[in-house]
């Protein structure tokens, strides 16, 4: 479906919690440098998809491939060394640790001190607010600042693929807009591919391609210009003006 080389391929994934199956044959892909959106409302299975991809849950069947290599069910600790980072739901702040410590952990797997220092400088210049508060505990930051810290931490390891889970959670529309803008900029400047999982259709403004997830199944896909059309249709569906 894409003409770019795929980094991430999800193939007929069936997953869930214990006896409860949540995902039914979900397939998607993310190519190099792309921004791909996975849209869905509450309970559609978005977070389950990401948790299965990152190995927090074992799938019932199906495959997850990274650069062609099968990583299905591999534990999350192996992701960062392979160039995949995730910004979890709620931003995943380590609340008792400082901003600087959170950022340092972003580069935990790296051993190159010079590269780490360079990444840190870049993070501080991209997000000056973080530089101001580097000794502050992460739990005391506001929602928007935490979002910045989460993104800054994510790019510390110079990843090739970034998974973002509901960046808009708990943020006002203005902050959400800022967050999406930041993600778009990160994608533009460093070329990192992004899989953004969202409820908020505004995310489609960033996307090169999009999937819609409903009750654990992919019910629609779109590419390029079709993405705008999909955005309009989703908006109407949420408002109930279309027949339900």
């Amino acid at each position, binding site marked *: 479906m894409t003409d770019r080389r795929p980094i991430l391929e999800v193939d007929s994934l069936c997953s869930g919690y214990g006896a409860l199956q949540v995902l039914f044959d979900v397939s998607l892909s993310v190519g190099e440098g792309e921004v791909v959106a996975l849209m869905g409302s509450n309970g559609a299975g978005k977070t389950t998809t990401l948790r299965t991809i*990152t190995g*927090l849950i074992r799938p019932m069947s199906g495959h997850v491939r990274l650069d062609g290599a099968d990583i299905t069910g591999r*534990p*999350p*600790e192996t*992701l*960062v*060394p392979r160039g995949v*980072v*995730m910004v*979890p739901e709620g931003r*995943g*702040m*380590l*609340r*008792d*640790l400082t901003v600087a*410590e959170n950022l*340092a*952990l*972003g580069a*935990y*797997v790296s051993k190159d001190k010079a590269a780490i220092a360079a990444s840190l400088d870049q993070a501080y210049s991209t997000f000056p607010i973080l530089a101001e508060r580097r000794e502050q505990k992460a739990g005391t930051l506001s929602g928007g600042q935490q979002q910045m810290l989460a993104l800054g*931490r994510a790019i510390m*390891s110079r990843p090739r693929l970034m998974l973002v889970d509901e960046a808009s959670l708990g943020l006002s529309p203005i902050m959400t807009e800022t967050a999406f803008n930041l993600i778009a900029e990160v994608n533009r400047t460093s070329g990192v591919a992004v899989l953004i999982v969202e409820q908020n259709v505004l995310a489609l403004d960033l996307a090169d391609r999009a999937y819609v997830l409903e009750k654990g199944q992919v019910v629609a896909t779109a590419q390029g210009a079709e993405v705008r059309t999909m955005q309009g249709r989703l908006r109407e569906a949420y408002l109930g003006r279309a027949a339900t």
Partner: protein
Amino acid sequence: MELLSQVVTGLAVGAAYSLIAVAVVLIYAGTKTLSIAMGEIGAFGLFAGLHWREEGVPGTDYHPSALVAGVIAVVLGALLGLVVERLVMRPLVRRPPLDGLIATLGVALLLALLELKIYGSDPVSAPSPVGNRVFTVLDAPLPATRVAAFVLAVVVAVGLFVFLTRTKFGLATRAAVSDPTVARLLGVRVNSVYMFAWGVGGALSGLAAAVLAPAFGNLTPFAQTQFSLRALAGAVIGGLDSIWGAIVGSLLVGVVETVVQSNVSSSQNGYASMAVLVLVLGTLLVRPRGILGTTGVA
């Protein structure tokens, strides 16, 4: 100055308890499990070391000195801690904390009963690993073991502090404690953190056994569990999520215990146990999170 010398002795006693208390808090912070097995884990290694001191290491003619026996206790304690973590505690990671507590109870019971079986119920002689010199500090007679306990407690506290705040693995440990899932997503091997907590915890228990047993001259099964209760009380009073709290709480328990015992004569440990009970009960009713604890721990 009677009281002052009692306090000094109490601090030294508390210092020995703090070794176990730190082990408990380390494990609690890392794995959300409250472990009551630390006493017997330490005792088991010490039993082996002291037994070999008397009978010789099986297959050889070597009789380790008391000091070497102490080292054996530390090493065996660490090994035992790692084994317990891998076989018993890791499968329980996603279960409610009560299950973990019960598992450590099983470990304590099993180890104590094994000690009874292997070494019999006669106490094993436990001489001091650091000689018998008695120092005098502020009019208080402190045997070498108590001084050693104090020094060790300080070293451990400082060492852990430096480790946790200045090293990369220490940072990873704090991350795993704060949020294991997020830590895993950052590439931290959380299982390694658990192993570290239990390995160090086991070693500390062995250390504690080596310095506590000589005070009574001998070692019996279940005796170390009684000491570990003092340490647990100290950890709870100080606050289960704070290493400094564990130390402060243990020192407090040591002081109260010694002062009560010196001033109210009775059979061994009698009134001291009552004092500990009152202290724990009081802390949990008045300030449940402990002196230095930060949250209403679940």
